[in-house]
Every structure is written in structure tokens, then in C-alpha cells.
């Protein structure tokens, strides 16, 4: 078994594949956070048009499979329609990576928006009423009273989204980005005799990536929880 393990690790660049997974996760997380914050703001805005648009975005995106969204980006916009992100002459795998990140960001933005909104919902109405009662204006009510509590309430759900995103990066294997599950497929096809070890390595990689995230966010959300 140890021999199989060392054989696999010398033959295949497992670390490079997981590095790709991490790059996908970080890039998509930044994108999803930006887009999701915009959508969340729209969903809680007092203007009806924005609320409907935000709700429509969340409903449409949340109910579509991530696989389909990623295909839409890579096979649809890139391969079929020849739209490119960034420099026109960048190679195909770079383009696939960028479209994959875009697809992941679009999908998870809906969940980020829901996480932020649920954070806002944890703030009791009395907090805002009390702030107004002591004469704070709209801006300071929001920035000094409501949002600090809302962000702290959103930590745990945001952590869950980040963990789900880490695992969901495997979906871009379907468009040929060389991340962990793509490598795993190749490894098993060439070394079916070592299938258990291969799955063990890859699963361990994800446990190593996601467990600390889970612990970190649980501790953070506990430590920063608003005591009520």
C-alpha cells in the first residue's frame, strides 16, 4: 500500500491539482462575495424594482444545476460564441479557468446573498427602533447598530457557503480544468488497481481543506455571536 502511495505521488502532481482547486476557490469566493453583496443589498433595498430583481436572480440561479451554469459559460459563451475573458490570445486552459470561475461565482453569489440576508434577519427590529429613538440618523443606524450585528450573524452561513464552494470547484472538471477531481478521474483510469488509495488521497485532500474552514467559521461565529 505504501508502495502504491509513493508511486502515485511521484507519478501524478497531486499538489498542483489541489493548488488549482485552491485558486478556483479563492477567485470564485471573491467574485461570489462581490456579486452576492450587490444582490443582497438589492434584496433588502426599499425600492421594489431592486427587490424583485434580486429575488429573481436568487430564484433562477439557486434552482439551476451548477453543472449547467458552468457549461453555459464554457461551452456556450466561450466555445460556441467565442467570447473571451481578458486577453484575447490567452490559451484555452486559461480561458476555461476564467469561465469556470465566473460560473462558480454566479452560482454561489445567490447563496452568499441569502447568507447575508439571513444575517440581517437575525437583528431584532427593536435594535433599529431603539437607534432611531435615541436620534441616530439613517446612516449611523445602519453603520453603528444594524450592520455590525448583521455581519456577525452572517458569519456561520457564509462559512457554509465557502465550504460548499470549495467542494463545488470539482464541477469545473466537466469543462476540463485540471483540478483535483479531474486528476482523480485520470489517475483511476490509468491505475484502476490503486482505486482505493487514489480516492483516499483525494478525499483526504478535501477533508484537509474543508475541516479547518469549518472549525474556523464555527469558532468565529461563536466568538463574535451577538449575545441576546
Amino acid at each position, binding site marked *: 500500500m505504501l508502495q502504491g502511495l509513493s508511486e502515485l505521488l511521484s507519478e501524478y502532481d497531486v499538489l498542483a491539482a489541489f493548488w488549482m482547486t485552491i485558486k478556483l476557490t479563492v477567485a470564485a469566493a471573491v467574485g461570489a462575495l462581490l456579486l452576492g453583496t450587490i444582490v443582497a443589498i438589492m434584496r*433588502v433595498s*426599499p*425600492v*421594489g*424594482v*431592486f*427587490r424583485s*430583481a434580486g429575488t429573481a436572480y436568487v*430564484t*433562477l440561479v*439557486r*434552482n*439551476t*444545476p*451548477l*453543472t*449547467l451554469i458552468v*457549461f*453555459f459559460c464554457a*461551452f*456556450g*459563451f466561450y466555445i*460556441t*460564441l*467565442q*467570447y473571451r475573458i481578458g486577453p484575447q490570445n490567452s490559451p484555452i486552459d486559461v480561458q476555461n479557468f476564467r469561465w469556470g470561475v465566473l460560473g462558480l461565482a454566479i452560482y454561489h453569489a445567490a447563496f452568499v446573498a441569502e447568507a447575508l440576508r439571513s444575517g*440581517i*434577519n437575525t*437583528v*431584532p*427590529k427593536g*435594535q*433599529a427602533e431603539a437607534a*432611531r429613538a435615541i436620534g441616530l440618523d*439613517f446612516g449611523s443606524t*445602519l453603520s453603528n447598530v*444594524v450592520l455590525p450585528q448583521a455581519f456577525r450573524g452572517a458569519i456561520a452561513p457564509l462559512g457554509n457557503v465557502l465550504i460548499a464552494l470549495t*467542494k*463545488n470547484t*470539482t*464541477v469545473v*472538471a*466537466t469543462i476540463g480544468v485540471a483540478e*483535483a*477531481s479531474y486528476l*482523480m*478521474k485520470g489517475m*483511476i*483510469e490509468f491505475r*484502476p*488497481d490503486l*482505486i482505493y488509495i487514489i*480516492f483516499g488521497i*483525494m*478525499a483526504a485532500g*478535501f*477533508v484537509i481543506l*474543508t*475541516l479547518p474552514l469549518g472549525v474556523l467559521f464555527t469558532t468565529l461565529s461563536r466568538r463574535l455571536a451577538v449575545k441576546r
Partner: protein
Amino acid sequence: MSAEASVLFDAPGPKARARHRIVAIVGGLVILALLYLLVRALATKGQFTGDKWAPFLDPVTWTSYLLPGLQATLVAAFFSIILAIIGGILLGMGRLSQLRPVRVACGAFVEFFRAVPVLMMMLFAYYLFLFGFQISGEALPLYGVVAGLTFYNSSVIAELIRSGVGSLPKGQREAGLAIGLTSFATLRLVLLPQAITLMLPSIVSQLVVVLKDSALGFLILYPELVRSGQTLASLQGNLIPTFIVIAAIFIIINYLLTRLANYLERRLQARKRGPKQPPLDTTMISPSLAPGGALAAPGQT
């Protein structure tokens, strides 16, 4: 919607309403402009021409590609959710067991399969069936999809069950033990039935996740909706219209399931509230403002 009281905003006065109208018009135009850009990006590449969409008027498109694909998706989701509920209940019971080894083993199983991506489990199951058990033939991809989905979702449902049992009043368990049931019988006869009812909305929501994840079967050649759509698209040369139709199918089904989950949730809450509890706000109503009779708090009359 407009009546919804928000923690963020006061009820708008006349000035604020006028401002909101302007913002709504400008914002609406910006949103329309973005949509227009997206539609134009598709239209300039000829995605809205008649011949790209004509195949969807042909019954063969539906009978030989889309409906069989939808059927395959639903079959995979159906078997997965049934097996996942069974597995989830067993694992959930294991995690609540009095026996430490059982508890630890089930806990480790649940945590492990929640941390590993579904796609990896599908790939592993698929190749294990193929190379390990020498299973081949048409049903192989289905086994792979169902196995992958079942492992992941039974872990999720096990956690739902556990939190459901945890949220029950302590008296339920104590009453079960007091009338002489063993702790296993208490779990099985008293706690689980209530926990499962409580968790019904979440289980329906999980079905949405299962349906979406079944699209991952694409990678192991399972002929679900996305793959059969892609076959159709490569034949007709209308990839984008096909993806739009498939997305619409998924969105409609999942939206209806979400509505069902919300409906169940509301019904359960209505049941939980029961008729006996007094309305929460009665103490805030001053006697002069109380509508009198039935709604006034007992102490105030």
C-alpha cells in the same frame, strides 16, 4: 411585499417615496440595460434565429432527447432520495446511540462524506463498480450516480435527523423512559417520528439539491437531462437554446419543490403554535387600546 417591515428602513414618508420612485426608474433602466447587453451578446451571434429554436417544435426533440433525459434525472433523484432517507435515518440513529463505538463510527462516516465532493464520490463509485465489481452495461452510470448522491445526502439527512431530535422538548424523551421504554425504543417510537415530521420541509429542500447534483452524472456518461441535451445540441447545432430550455425545466421543477417545502413548513408551524398559547403581544396592549373580549390578556380585565 411593500408592507413588509424591515429592520433597515423606516416606513418612507412622502419625500422618501418620491426619491424611491426616481431610484426605481433609474435602477430599472440599468437592469434593463444589463439584460439588453446579455440578450444582444446572444443575438449578434444569431442565437435567437428561428432555425435555432425550431427543433423544440418538433415532437421528436422531446420524445427522443429531452423527456428521456428528464426521466433519467428524475429516476436517479428518486432512488437517491429514498436510499438517502433510509441511510440518513440509520446514521442519525447511530449518532444518537447509547453505545459509544456506534456513535463515533457513525459520526466519522457522516463527517467524512459531508467533506468529500459529490462528484468525487460518483467517480469513485462508478469506477469501483466498473473495475472492482466488474459491473458493466447500461445501468452502470445510474449506479454510480445513485451511490454518489446517496452517500452524500444520507450524511446530510443524518444531521437533519440529529438536529430534529435535539430540538424536541426534553420531556418527550423523559416521558418515554418513564413509562419503561428502553432508550432505543424511546428513540424509535417517540422521538424519531416527531423529528422526521419536523424535518420534512428540509428533506423536500434536499430533494432540490439531489435533482441539481444529478446533473454531475454528466461526467460518468449518465444520460440525464444535461447530457441528453448536449447530444441534441450537437446534432442540431443549437447549444445555447437547448441549455436555456433545460435550465427552464430545472428551474420550474425546483421552484415548485421549494414552494412545497415552504408550504409544509408553514403548516407545521401552524400546528406547533397550537390554539392554547396566548398571542405574544397581549402584554403590550394597554387596556384602553385592547380590542376587548377575547384578545385582551386575562389579567387586564
